[in-house]
């Protein structure tokens, strides 16, 4: 049998197996539509559910404080090995985990949903680290290039196109400075924490603080605060087309070479409207650059969010 003969038989097999006019079953069409509608949860219902989770988890908050203290002191004392990622958030039968309002899973990482107080290792995010949360936080996403922790008590902001984002902590692997006019990398800006922090602090269309040196869980880098100025930006930004928000600035995108929009390693990060953010740019022990953002999406309760989120960011311990 020649290659051509094999190819002919394969093509014939597919033609015989699957008719050109074969249609998807009706129940599939219905189930897809139902799944889309089912994932649409109103903001008020989400808040109600998270508040309930917060009350349910309050009873174990004391344990969370103890866990937080231990995990923060152990590395700084410099004695003993780096703490092993211990699942201190073992679920007590009397405090079952609340259902997550997000459809976690389905091949997109292993999102944990509502978190009991405790320390958790990242599942998909690389470089791996552990994080410690008190009650009231939710793991919304944990994939190779991105991890999201949402603050149940935090605010939210709905853009003109109907998309809603929530206050929380967002971690990104390998951020690249991105152009305001096209989804491309800005030439001449390095990929290390210092390069990106300097670029951000000098960005003409941002109000940014000076980068302050920080060390987080074995990663050194810089922290700075950013917001949009009230003045008109110097040039149009493509991000306006994303969610219909006229005030926005595209800032970072994934640097994974194979990442394409929609792919598992793709993301973009920008700042929109009233949003303010505390940005940590860190050189992880693995050699990766990691960006951690405390993101106040509505710009209303920044101080409260930062007070709640900073201990969590400080609890990060990167794998060697």
């Amino acid at each position, binding site marked *: 049998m020649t*290659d051509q003969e094999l190819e002919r038989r394969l*093509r014939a097999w597919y033609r*015989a197996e699957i008719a050109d006019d074969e249609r998807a079953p009706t129940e599939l069409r219905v189930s897809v*539509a139902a799944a*889309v509608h089912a994932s649409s949860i109103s903001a008020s219902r989400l808040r109600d559910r998270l508040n309930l989770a917060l009350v349910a988890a309050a009873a174990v908050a004391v344990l969370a404080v103890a866990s937080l203290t231990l995990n923060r002191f152990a590395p700084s004392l410099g004695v003993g090995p780096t703490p092993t990622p211990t699942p201190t958030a073992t679920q007590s039968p009397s405090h079952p985990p609340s259902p997550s309002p997000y459809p976690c899973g389905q091949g997109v990482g292993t999102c944990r949903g509502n978190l009991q107080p405790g320390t958790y290792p990242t599942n998909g995010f690389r470089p791996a680290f552990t994080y410690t949360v008190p009650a009231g936080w939710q793991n919304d996403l944990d994939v190779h290039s991105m991890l999201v922790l949402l603050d149940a008590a935090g605010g939210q902001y709905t853009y003109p196109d109907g998309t809603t984002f929530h206050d929380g902590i967002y971690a990104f692997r390998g951020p690249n400075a991105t152009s305001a006019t096209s989804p491309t990398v800005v030439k001449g800006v390095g990929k290390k924490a210092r390069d990106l922090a300097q670029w951000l602090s000098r960005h003409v269309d941002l109000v940014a603080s000076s980068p302050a040196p920080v060390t987080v869980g074995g990663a050194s880098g810089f922290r700075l605060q950013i917001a949009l100025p009230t003045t008109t930006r110097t040039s149009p930004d493509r991000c306006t087309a994303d969610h219909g928000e006229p005030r926005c600035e595209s800032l970072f995108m994934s640097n994974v070479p194979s990442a394409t929009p*929609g792919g598992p390693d793709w993301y973009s990060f920008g700042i929109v409207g009233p949003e303010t953010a505390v940005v940590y740019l860190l050189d992880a022990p693995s050699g990766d650059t990691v960006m951690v953002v405390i993101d106040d999406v509505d710009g209303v309760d920044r101080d409260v969010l930062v007070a709640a989120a900073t201990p969590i960011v400080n609890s990060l311990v990167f794998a060697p």
Partner: protein
Amino acid sequence: MVDGRPLEVDKTSERGAAFLRLANEHLDASYRLARAIVRDPGEAQDATHDAFVQAWRKWSTLRDPALFERWFDRILVNTCRNRLDRASRWHLTDISAEVVLGSGDPISDSHERDVIGSAIAMLTPDHRVVVALRYYRDFTLEEIATRLEIPVGTVQSRLHYALKRLHAVIEAADAKGTIR
């Protein structure tokens, strides 16, 4: 603003409606592609459903709806491949002794279909995917590489080994006179 994470969208929003419009438009072709990869209609239905759910979660990351097909194909193919991985539906056994002699037009013959189908089922998930994209969808190597986000050389390599395996299995069956 973060794009690349699950979104929460009011079901009446235009974005939700836009997604469902595209989903409806591509549903049949997507289901057929899933059939070509996993073969079993029930598995194909589940894979297509899961892929659309995943696509909906990532909907905010698709900037250009014109790229929907290519974007969704990638999600669908990965979903099918993951399902094949989990189900371990390929079994590396010699089927040449199991098939029986057919007659008439080999393409319309159910035995020919069984032999080719069984041979394809013996491939690894990665190989099944490239074979389906090449001989069902008639994609070029470059188009397959784009959809799978892998180098063209990798596509070439996977196709080479897949065809080599198919050659061996089908020729063994043919040589035993079980096909024609």
